[in-house]
C-alpha cells in the first residue's frame, strides 16, 4: 500500500537562496505529523508546498498517487495562526461557505432545501467544535480560541484528505491552548483525520503527534549560509494508536515515549 502523501526529492529555491533541499517523505493515512524546527528552517515553505500555494523547484509531490497541482484545493484543508476565518460572515455562514461554493458555482449562495441542509451540517460541525452557542456571532466578537475553533470547523466540513495546521495555537494563552489540544485530538480520532501541524512548541509537537519531523539544515557554510537548505533531520515515529490516544494534559511527556 502506498502512502497518502508522498514527497520525492523536493527542492525549494528563491533565486540562489535554497530553502529546502532534497526532502523525501511519505505520510500515511491517519497520521498526526508534527513539524518542528528553528525559525527560517523552511517549516512554512514545507506547508505551502503541500497546500499547493507554492510549487517546488524540483521534485514531485503525490497525493493519493496523483501528482499534486500547485494550487490550493478542497482536498487539503488549512488553519492558519491568524486570518483563518472570514470577518464579514457570521460563524454559521463561515462554516456554510464550503457547501455554498461547491453547490452554487455562480451565485455561491444556497436557497431552500439545499440551504437548510448546509445550515444543519454547519450547525452540527459548530456543535462538534464547541461553538454551538455562538453560531450567529461575527469573528470580531469571538476570542482567539473561538476563532480557531471556527477555522477548524470551517475546514473540516469539506472532509479534507489532509488537514494542515500552521502554528494554529501559537497565539493562544496556555489554558485555551490545552482545551484546543483536547479538541484537535478528539476531532482527529472521531473524523479519522490526517493532520500535518507546524509548530514552534516542541512539547505540543510530541503531545499531539504520532510522528514528529524536525526540519533543519544538515550542513552550514558560514560564508554562504543561504546555499544550503533544510531537510528532515529527525523523523521520530511515536508509538500511539489512534484508538488508545486519550488526551491528558500533564501525563504524556517526551520521557514516556519509549522509542525516542
Amino acid at each position: 500500500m502506498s502512502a497518502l502523501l508522498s514527497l520525492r526529492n523536493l527542492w525549494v529555491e528563491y533565486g540562489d537562496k535554497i530553502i529546502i533541499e532534497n526532502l523525501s517523505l511519505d505520510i500515511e493515512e491517519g497520521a498526526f505529523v508534527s513539524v518542528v524546527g528553528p525559525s527560517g528552517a523552511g517549516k512554512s515553505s514545507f506547508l505551502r508546498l503541500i497546500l499547493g500555494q507554492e510549487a517546488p523547484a524540483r521534485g514531485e509531490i503525490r497525493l493519493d498517487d496523483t501528482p499534486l497541482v500547485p494550487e490550493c484545493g478542497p482536498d487539503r484543508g488549512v488553519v492558519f495562526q491568524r486570518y483563518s476565518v472570514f470577518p464579514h460572515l457570521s460563524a454559521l455562514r463561515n462554516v456554510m461557505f464550503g457547501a455554498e461554493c461547491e453547490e452554487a458555482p455562480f451565485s455561491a449562495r444556497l436557497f431552500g432545501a439545499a440551504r437548510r441542509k448546509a445550515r444543519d451540517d454547519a450547525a452540527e460541525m459548530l456543535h462538534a467544535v464547541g461553538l454551538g452557542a455562538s453560531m450567529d456571532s461575527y469573528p470580531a466578537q469571538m476570542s482567539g480560541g473561538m476563532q480557531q475553533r471556527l477555522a477548524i470547523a470551517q475546514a473540516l466540513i469539506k472532509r479534507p484528505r489532509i488537514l494542515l495546521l500552521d502554528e494554529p495555537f501559537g497565539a493562544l494563552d496556555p489554558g485555551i491552548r490545552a482545551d484546543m489540544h483536547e479538541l484537535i485530538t478528539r476531532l482527529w480520532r472521531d473524523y479519522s483525520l490526517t493532520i500535518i501541524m507546524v509548530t514552534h512548541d516542541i512539547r505540543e509537537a510530541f503531545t499531539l503527534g504520532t510522528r514528529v519531523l524536525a526540519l533543519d539544515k544538515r550542513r552550514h557554510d558560514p560564508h554562504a549560509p543561504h546555499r544550503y537548505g533544510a531537510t528532515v533531520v529527525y523523523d521520530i515515529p511515536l508509538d500511539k494508536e489512534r484508538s488508545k490516544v486519550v488526551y491528558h494534559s500533564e501525563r504524556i511527556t517526551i520521557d514516556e515515549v519509549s522509542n525516542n
Partner: protein
Amino acid sequence: MRWVNRQVGRSGRLFLGSAPILLLVFVYLILAVQRHEANPADKILPLPSAMVHSMAALILEPDKLSGQLVFWADTLASLQRLGLGLGIATLMALAVGLVIGILPPVRATLGPLVTGIAVIPPIALLPILFIALGLGETAKVALIVIGIAPVMIRDVAGHVNALPRELIIKAQTLGASSWQVILRVALPQAMPRLIQAIRLALGPAWVFLISAEAIASDQGLGYRIFLVRRYLSMDVILPYVAWIALLAIAMDFALVFLSRRAFPWAHGEGH
C-alpha cells in the same frame, strides 16, 4: 492630567465644536457692521439681512425669464451632475478596482493605465472633454468621473490586494473558484472601503463640479456663484457656499450611517 488623556463628553464636544464656528460668525458680523457704518452700500461683507433678502428672492420667487425657482433649480442641476458622476465613478471603482486587486493578470494589464490616468490633472482634460463631448451635461459628468474614478479604483484595488493572503488561500481550500473568491471574499470586504473612498472623493468631486459649471453652464450652484461674482453679489455667494458645505456634510453623514448600518462587522460593533 495630561492633555492626551482628557476625554471630552457629549455636551462638552458640542460646546467646544461650536465655539470656533460662532467666533468666526461673530468676527464676520463685527467687520460687516464696521464696513456698513463707513459705507452703507458696501457689497463686500453683506449683513445677514441683505443675504436673507436676496436669497428669499432666489428661493421663493420664480425667475422672470425661465419661470423656475432659481435656487432649487441650481441645487437640483448640481446634485444631478454630482450624483451621476459619483455613481459612475463608484461602479467603476468597484468593478475595476476589485479585479485589479484580486486578479494578478488584470493588475499587470490595467494597473499602469489607471496609475497613468490618475496622475493627469483632470482640469487639464476639461478642454478635451468640452471638444469631444460638447458643452452639455455629459462633459461635466465626465470631468467628475475622470477626476475621482482613478483614485477610487486605486484605493479599492490596493485594499483588496492587501487582504490577508490567508483568507484567499482559505477560500480556495474550501473549494472557491476565482469568481467565488471575488464574489464572496473580495467584494464584501471591499464594500466598507468603497464607502470610505466615496467619502474622500466627495471633496474633489465638488471641485470638479464647480469648475465645470463655472466654465460652461446655464444652471447649477457653481454657475450661479460665478455669474453673480460679476456684480460683487457676496449676499448670494456666501449663502450658496454655506449651502454647498451643508450638502457635502449631509452626504458624508449619510455615507457613514450607511456603512455602519450595512457593514457592522467592519466597525467592530455588535450588530
